[in-house]
């Protein structure tokens, strides 16, 4: 029972809910960038909420099924072809032995999640299946990899009401809480952070860089704890939002913490997109 990777897509990784319990050894938590879509993909198959899926970035893989199973896709809008025939997202898709499931480019949002019946059964390292080098052997999916699956059952997952996915790729404001170092930055920086626009610069699973008109600074702090959603103000005046694979410590003022599922929203925004922060205490 397995699925074989024919093409990997632009940047595809195996992700379960993450690798907690090892941060005191400097190990990032990893897990999905967009937790909302990850949860939806698993829910569509009645999976365990932490089950391992494939996270696709920009484009998706081509998969060959060596056993019958069921998959479901959620997140960024992506074209899916089952043996050449287009199929829909957010629905259970039955795949027979020998099925080829081909994913195209993501046309809205950045990341899509492919869940498999029962979850991928790849080996765990430090309690998790999430790929993160060098904790795992590879940082992402490799061409030719064979991923073990769980046994197929014939019982159909119960039909669920699919929540709206209109938010994907369209977010303009992010709700934040003040970070623990908010009081250490100047009033001018505080005002600017809550009023100005920021554009998304380079970004990956470690972090998103946001560029605005903040001046250079020299706040210099000792190494402090950082987790996904923490926004730091760098000496160059850019913002750095820690994401799933972000380091557990950082040395810059932690000015904001994204609240609730705002990390998921950010994870679906592309380079060049403009956002604002909306604060609450």
């Amino acid at each position, binding site marked *: 029972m397995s699925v074989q990777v024919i093409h990997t897509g632009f940047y595809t990784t195996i992700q379960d809910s993450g690798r*907690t319990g090892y941060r005191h*050894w400097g190990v990032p938590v990893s897990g999905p960038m967009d937790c909302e879509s990850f949860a939806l993909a698993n829910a569509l198959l009645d999976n365990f909420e932490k089950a391992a899926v494939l996270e696709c970035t920009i484009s998706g893989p081509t998969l060959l099924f060596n056993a019958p199973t069921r998959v479901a896709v959620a997140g960024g809008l992506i074209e899916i072809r089952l043996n050449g025939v287009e199929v829909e997202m957010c629905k259970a898709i039955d795949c027979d032995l020998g099925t080829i499931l081909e994913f195209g480019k993501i046309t809205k949002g950045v990341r899509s999640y492919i869940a498999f019946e029962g979850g991928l059964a790849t080996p765990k390292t430090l309690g998790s299946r999430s790929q993160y080098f*060098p904790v795992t052997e590879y940082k992402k999916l490799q061409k030719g990899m064979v991923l073990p699956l769980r046994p197929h059952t014939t019982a159909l997952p119960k039909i669920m009401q699919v929540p709206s996915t209109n938010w994907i790729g369209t977010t303009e404001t992010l709700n934040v809480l003040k*970070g*623990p170092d908010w009081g250490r930055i100047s009033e001018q920086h505080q005002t600017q952070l809550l009023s100005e626009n920021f554009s998304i610069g380079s970004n990956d699973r470690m972090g998103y860089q946001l560029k605005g008109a903040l001046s250079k600074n020299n706040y210099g702090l000792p190494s402090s704890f950082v987790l996904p959603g923490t926004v730091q103000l760098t000496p160059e005046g850019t913002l750095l939002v820690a994401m799933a694979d972000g380091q557990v*410590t950082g040395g810059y003022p*932690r000015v904001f913490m994204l609240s609730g599922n705002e990390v998921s929203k950010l994870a679906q925004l592309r380079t060049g997109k403009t956002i604002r922060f909306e604060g609450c205490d």
Partner: protein
Amino acid sequence: MKTFELVPFGEKTLILRFDDVQEQPETIHWLNGFAAFLRSKFSKTFEDVLLSHLEINLVSKKNTDFKKVEKQVRLALTEYNNIDVDTACVWEIPACFDAECAPDLDELFGGDQNKIDTYIQAFTAQELYVHFFGFLPGFAYLGGLPKELQMPRKAHPRLAVPKGAVAVGGSYAAVYPQQSPGGWQLIGQTPFVFFDRNRMIPFFLKPGDRIRFKPISFLEYQQLDRDYQKASFLPQKIENK
């Protein structure tokens, strides 16, 4: 060290700060011991408990219940003070500080071999301790460097610091657990790998442990490196405290 404050950090994390903490070995050992105690005692509440610079960070599995955590910390404080849970080990880490392994020493001391020798002698005589981990899996921030052994970080970080590099950055020393970009001064190299997923014990150091570097020649380094490649053995544990 009983008065503390809990500072909220987002919806899942509380930062635990004690009044009047100084950066000295006893305090750091106490903090690390207490963090380990909280980690095991409240493993159902917290997904992670970890130190950063003089602080303990408590990451809840669900949104933080401030009152509940405050109660748990108070309870843990009374219990922790009554038992000895300090299981810190002292490790001897062989490392080569010859020019081949220490690309920054020459520049730091203007090529003065006497000054380099004095520095390395003092560095290897010092017992360091693991204050906390961060940056990379297995990257230990080693505290305990006296002022005269501290070094400013490099103005321009290197793109590739080799695995095993012994480095000094500000008030901390560290060993790079893997090849990575890095801005610390490279003063030596050890064949021992601080994180190895294929080893029975992926991390051998734990927060609160102590380290002494033992100087070895470049020849010894090469030999040890070859041996290590074959058998990923651990460095010597001098004692269990």
